């Protein structure tokens, strides 16, 4: 084992490997921060460069991009309410509130440090438990995926506050949008309005950019622009040790959720980030701060999405099946070099595997360093007069939307979603719940129908399989928790009033 790490380290500490990783991480941060350019797209753009490289170096560079993009995505989530990557969607909630209170530096610092902790933790998990954890991936069949999706949807009750009905309608809206495209079981087009543009459905990234960023711009313009520039020097302090200790529960939650999602193909960080956000709130000593600018609310999702960078490699390296879109690009890089990942890879190319492990540690530390350098300029860039800022953001997100598929269609989707989002906020509906519906719609639908095919039509399949049952019970608890708590609070208040 140790000699393999030495072998890997020899490869990873070569100047060319270090240089490529540094470039990869920097590129990842920039790409992640550009809305529409997710981690996987940023990696894909570099794929042609990997042709001439040693395959291990190519994988290290791509891993660097992946890691950097996770932090990059949180920069825009915090500063302009636009998740640069789907994994940063949950970071928007408290990160942007912190920014509005002038605590942008703090929020970014927490994102950076907890992301690094998550990234390093995931390397440890990857190295120590890759093989046993790959069994978990096998235990997840369609009913379990369905239950996980339902668990995710149940989170709306904790996001929407008192108006559960409007929250449910918002989530439903997201689910409806997610059904457009080709029916996955019959192959027939569905809600495509006769054209070809919608055949592959509405891109989640486009929906998210519209609902978050563009609706915010419309809202700010219509409401007279409450966006203020930060006066004086802005704090860029990293979280203190005491603060980090306080964030330990949030980070732990993020590590657990990120590990699970990384193992499951089709995830990619967004679900883990949302669930960790909610669980961190449940276990927090200050749940009332969530939604109003809680550091824990940034730490949990940002830990979780960085954990996915390592654990998504577990199904890739053990089965040759990518655990996320980004891992799929790494698979492509391996295939381009004629390397078949799978059970034999550890024996056949130990240098490649252990080089990648060491590279992941280095890349995470590089992210910490580069992230620190990027902090101050990033805040300075958005600290301009609102009209200038709005124009710049709009230009940025529209270019980002175009780049998703290199066509105008996504630009129209983004603008339309911006209008929808604005209308929803205007009338008290919940944009976040709609995003959740949009992200989870396909997962829930496909796995519901697939489970029923596998069980030959027996609906009890969801309750007779232990993992699926447990997840559904969690979902129920999550759904009812805020309602029960509110009822209890109401009760104590009344009792206090009565005794007074």
């Amino acid at each position, binding site marked *: 084992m140790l000699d393999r790490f030495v072998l890997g380290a020899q490869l990873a500490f070569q100047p060319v490997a270090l240089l490529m990783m540094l470039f990869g991480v920097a590129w990842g941060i920039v790409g992640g921060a550009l809305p529409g350019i997710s981690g996987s*797209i940023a990696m*894909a*753009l*570099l*794929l*042609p*460069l990997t*042709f001439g490289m040693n395959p291990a170096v190519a994988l290290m560079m791509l891993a660097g991009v992946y890691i950097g993009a996770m932090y990059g995505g949180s920069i825009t989530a915090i500063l302009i309410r636009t998740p640069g990557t789907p994994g940063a969607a949950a970071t928007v909630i408290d990160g942007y509130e912190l920014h509005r209170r002038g605590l942008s530096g703090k929020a970014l610092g927490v994102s950076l440090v907890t992301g690094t902790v998550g990234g390093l933790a995931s390397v440890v998990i990857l190295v120590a438990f890759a093989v046993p954890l790959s069994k978990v*991936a*096998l*235990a*997840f*069949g*369609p009913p379990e995926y369905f239950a996980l999706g339902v668990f995710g949807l149940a989170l709306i009750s904790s996001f929407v506050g008192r108006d559960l009905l409007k929250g449910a309608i918002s989530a439903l809206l997201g689910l409806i949008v997610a059904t457009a495209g*080709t029916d*996955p*079981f*019959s*192959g*027939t*087009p569905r809600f*495509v309005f*006769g*054209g*070809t*543009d919608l*055949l*592959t459905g509405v891109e989640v990234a486009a929906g998210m950019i519209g609902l978050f960023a563009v609706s915010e711009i419309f809202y700010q313009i219509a409401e007279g622009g409450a966006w203020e520039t930060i006066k004086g020097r802005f704090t860029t302090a990293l979280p203190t040790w005491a603060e980090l200790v306080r964030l330990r529960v949030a980070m732990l939650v993020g590590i657990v959720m990120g590990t699970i999602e990384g193992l499951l*193909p*089709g995830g990619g960080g967004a679900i883990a980030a949302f669930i960790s956000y909610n669980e961190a709130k449940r276990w927090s000593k200050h749940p009332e701060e969530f939604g109003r600018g809680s550091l824990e609310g940034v730490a949990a999702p940002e830990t979780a999405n960085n954990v996915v960078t390592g654990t998504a490699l577990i*199904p890739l390296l053990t*089965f*040759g*099946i*990518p655990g996320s879109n980004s891992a*799929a*690009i790494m*698979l*492509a*890089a391996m*295939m*381009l070099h*004629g390397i*078949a*990942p*799978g*059970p*034999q*890879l550890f024996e056949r190319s130990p240098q490649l595997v252990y080089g990648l492990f060491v590279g992941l540690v280095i890349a995470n530390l590089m992210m910490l360093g580069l992230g620190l350098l990027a902090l101050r300029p990033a805040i300075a860039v958005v600290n301009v007069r609102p009209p200038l800022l709005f124009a710049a953001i709009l230009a940025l997100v529209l270019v980002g939307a175009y780049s998703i*598929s*290199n*066509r105008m*269609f996504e630009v129209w989707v983004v603008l339309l979603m911006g209008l929808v989002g604005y209308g929803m906020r205007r009338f008290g509906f919940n944009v976040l719940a709609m995003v959740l519906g949009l992200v989870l719609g396909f997962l829930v639908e*496909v796995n519901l129908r*697939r489970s029923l*095919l*596998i069980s*030959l039509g027996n609906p009890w399949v969801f309750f007779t399989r232990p993992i699926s049952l447990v997840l559904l019970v969690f979902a129920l608890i999550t759904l009812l928790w805020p309602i029960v708590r509110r009822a209890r609070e109401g009760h104590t208040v009344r009792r206090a009033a009565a005794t007074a």
Partner: protein
Amino acid sequence: MRYGGRLAAGVALVAMVCGLGVAALAQGTYPSKPITLVTHSSVGAGGDIFLRNLAKHLEGIVPVPIVVENRRGGASATAVTYVATSPPDGYVLYGSTPTMLQTPMLTRTQHTYLDLQPVVNVFFDPMILYVKADSPWKTLPDIVNAARAKPGQIRFGAATPGSVEHMIAHQIQKVAKVSVQPVTFEGGGDLLLAVLGGHVDLGVGEYAEVAAQVEARQVRVVASFTKDRLPRTTIPTATEQGVPIVVTKFRGLLGPKGMDPQAVAYWERVVKQVLEKPAYKQYYESVYLLPGYMDHKQYRAYLDMMNQTLRRYLKEIGVLK
């Protein structure tokens, strides 16, 4: 990807401007400027990897840069329209897969494969049927018998209806006169996990998708749907086992309709040449692609045949009226 492509094209352009004399000399002969290969696949997906590797190994054979461009969207409709409306001078080609035939059948598209000029086919992707290693079924007749004993209860994993994988599941039912429960998955990887996890009983996919698991003895390949046995394997074909089904995916190149015959002939020549190149051979054998050279005439006939087969199957499963 396109940025990468643009960049490469830009570099190439600068290089050409610098060497003006050379460029002038090359004018009039094909090819004299960068060639774009278009795919509807996202980067890293099968169609994309095919073109990128082809482009890489054509270096040294084709004297101009070859750029791969991903035009996603519309389940190949965007890419087909882009190529069909490009100038037919041989500088924009489309990397084909069966998807380009299937999409226009399911929905109204601006262009179909009939608006394209078949140029040359390069590979076949062999399709196989596989089970988990501890499955009691060792041969195709085992599976057919099991399906007879329990009609509609064998969980048969395949890709979306309309796909070649799904068509095979359908044809098995028709040819062997059995009924199974098809369970669809988005990708070959998802399906493989479901077979390994015991969530479905068997799967149909490309050999390359399961090769690593075969080697690790986690998965057993029961039959291939090829004409002959796959090279370097002992897997019997479905036909040998009494279920005569031969279906392969194809990967080739098409240009805009009316493409310059000189350019068509050029591509026929270089593809033949590159398929013989040892480094390329080593690569495509390692990912279990079968060389499937067809000139433009054979390719047109083949595509017409595939188109009819797909249409008949879509009618039979009730997707098409």
